[in-house]
């Protein structure tokens, strides 16, 4: 590996304190649109998730309406979460980190704004189309064929601005967060175009569609979302604690091994494929232990003297809890890929449990943390603009919501797997016996949805404060 990190005294985020990037003067509308859209879509995904959970309580309730049937709402929820929340928040986070760490301003803010509008319009149309029966049938790549090019082009608009912002950075060493942001922004267009081409434009032959869809879904989660979330953690934890990151070498090791091994796998054992593909996937997934352990030790070494102050700051609290969930989700992925385990847990709720923890527990949490830090600074306000009570409730509701959903899904998954392994249990009997934990997911969904509503209110009140102040200043100058 061509890692050329110069040793220790590299810039730490703590040193770029006085820099004011993307203040009101440089028009942060693009980034704010990305974040606002992301939060609205997260709420939308939570509500769609509630609808799917409702199916396990009263399957006949929504039976008369095609657009509310389980399969469609499930696909729409996935699309809203991944494309409505995931991509825009990763982009907004990435753009801000590139500005801040490169000590520069955003290149082409107008293009970012237009791109964000196009992206959100495309997601709205796409999710609507999925509810009307236009989904592709591929998990993780649900957006209909006509929607994919719009998404791709609007991503390119924003991605290009990110690239220019990165290019015009002040010369100097790169901080790990910059690698992670660049990696995540670079990864998405490649996997997305591959999937769009091989699944929608020129559909691959037979089972190759399935391998492409699995490969895409794995890369989207582990590498794209993973890099974006870690970029945020690598910036905010050292920054707010005011101490340098323990080791840049370890960060580089984690970065390259995650890029290399995180992008392998995703195929269930026993899939109708040549077995080398599945084995290679298992090897890659197990080797994910390297980046997980490296990141975990690196952060532990960084924060070990501040363990009691980790709760002090909203950003810090969300970020370290998110990081903790990342380690658990990664460990579960590794254990679940081992053949003796996967034979039991494949095709059960075990997989969705891991995804829930990764997407909500890790990614959404790091994004929340980042938004609590970034948005006041974009608007020239300070941290106190956030309502502390709303923050507190947001944290506890989402934390316990995610935890309840995760544990219920995990229990349901393991139970299902063990019961199904015994051929004496009929399939429907197993489903009936494991429906109780599946039903309790609705509690978790409800808590997460409530938390997101509080977050949205808090976000709106910060925007309103900024608007009021802006108006007052204008009156004064008039």
């Amino acid at each position: 590996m061509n890692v050329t990190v110069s040793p220790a005294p590299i810039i730490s985020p703590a040193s770029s304190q006085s820099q004011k990037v993307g203040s009101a003067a440089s028009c942060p509308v693009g980034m704010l649109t990305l974040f606002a859209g992301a939060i609205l879509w997260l709420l939308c995904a939570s509500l769609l998730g509630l609808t799917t959970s409702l199916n396990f309580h009263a399957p006949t309730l929504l039976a008369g309406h095609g657009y509310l049937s389980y399969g469609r709402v499930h696909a729409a929820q996935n699309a809203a979460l991944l494309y409505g929340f995931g991509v825009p928040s990763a982009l907004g986070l990435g753009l801000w980190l590139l500005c801040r760490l490169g000590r520069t301003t955003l290149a082409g803010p107008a293009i970012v704004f237009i791109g964000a509008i196009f992206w959100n319009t495309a997601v709205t149309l796409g999710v609507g189309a999925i509810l009307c029966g236009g989904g592709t049938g591929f998990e993780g790549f649900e957006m209909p064929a006509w929607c994919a090019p719009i998404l791709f082009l609007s991503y390119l608009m924003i991605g290009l601005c990110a690239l220019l912002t990165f290019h015009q950075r002040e010369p100097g060493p790169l901080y790990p967060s910059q690698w992670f942001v660049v990696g995540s922004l670079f990864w998405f267009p490649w996997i997305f175009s591959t999937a769009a081409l091989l699944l929608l434009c020129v559909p691959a032959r037979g089972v190759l569609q399935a391998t492409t869809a699995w490969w895409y879904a794995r890369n989207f989660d582990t590498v794209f979302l993973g890099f974006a979330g870690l970029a945020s953690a690598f910036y905010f934890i050292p920054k707010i604690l005011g101490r340098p990151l323990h080791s840049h070498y370890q960060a580089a090791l984690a970065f390259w091994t995650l890029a290399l091994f995180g992008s392998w796998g995703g195929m269930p054992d026993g899939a109708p494929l040549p077995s080398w593909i599945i084995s290679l996937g298992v090897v890659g997934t197990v080797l994910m232990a390297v980046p997980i352990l490296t990141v975990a030790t690196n952060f532990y070494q960084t924060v070990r003297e501040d363990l009691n102050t980790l709760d002090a700051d909203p950003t810090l609290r969300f970020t370290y809890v998110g990081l903790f969930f990342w380690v658990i989700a990664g460990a579960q992925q590794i254990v679940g890929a081992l053949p003796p385990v996967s034979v039991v847990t494949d095709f059960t709720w075990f997989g969705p449990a891991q995804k829930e923890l990764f997407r909500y527990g890790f990614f959404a949490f790091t994004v929340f943390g980042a938004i609590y830090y970034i948005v006041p600074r974009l608007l020239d306000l300070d941290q106190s603009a956030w309502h502390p009570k709303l923050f507190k409730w947001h944290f506890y509701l989402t934390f316990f919501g995610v935890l309840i959903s995760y544990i219920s899904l995990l229990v349901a998954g393991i139970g299902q797997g063990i019961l199904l392994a015994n051929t004496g249990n009929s399939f429907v009997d197993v489903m009936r016996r494991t429906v109780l934990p599946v039903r309790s997911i609705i509690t978790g969904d409800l808590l997460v949805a409530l938390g997101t509503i509080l977050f949205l209110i808090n976000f709106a009140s910060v925007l309103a404060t900024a608007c009021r102040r802006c108006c007052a200043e204008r009156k004064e100058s008039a």
Partner: protein
Amino acid sequence: MNSGPLLFLGLFATMACSWTGFVLAPQLQLGGLAQTNTVVVGDVLPQTYPLAQPGEAHAGSEVYRANGCAACHTEMVRPLDLGSDIQRSWGVRRSLAEDYLFANPVMLGSQRIGPDLANFGQRTDTNGVYLRLYDPGLITHGSVMPPYRFLFETRKIGFFPSPDALVLPDRDAPPAGFEIIPTEKARALAAYLLSLRQDGYLFEAPPPPLAKTNAIATNAVPAVKPAAK
């Protein structure tokens, strides 16, 4: 690692690794897959496998896609030593790449909230599909599947009752003078589900070897043990 171009080059290389391994190489190995012949089983001669999907079945696969059926149903049977798929008589052999040659889109699914459907066509008939879609609890007591009533139409019985009308027990029976008939979508979906059968024994998945016995050979069909559900 402080140079932008070097960072991009490294990312490109790692990405290319994954792309070559999981997109390009499978394409090279399986992209040219063609119809093949089944292996000889007893006195059954080799047959072309798989056969192309009938038009109505393809239309049905679009209904399957549109309603996200793959969210709860897989379409792949794992080998005998992996899981209990074959013991649950979801298939006689493991699924192979050849089985999906004519499917588009290929919806293998990732979760089983309902049973595997790779060989659903062998387990039921048209009426069975309709009843399961209209009221899943009718055939499988305790099913968690939601009903898909929007695929059916309740209409007034005309001069003659429709031959397609669903025969339903009291709990689902339509009001007097009305009948429930499947829409075009339900018909297509049924055609698709009934076309799902991976029954050709191929070179990669030969029939299970017959047990060697000293019994005198007969022409009688061996008694099949009833499979566990």
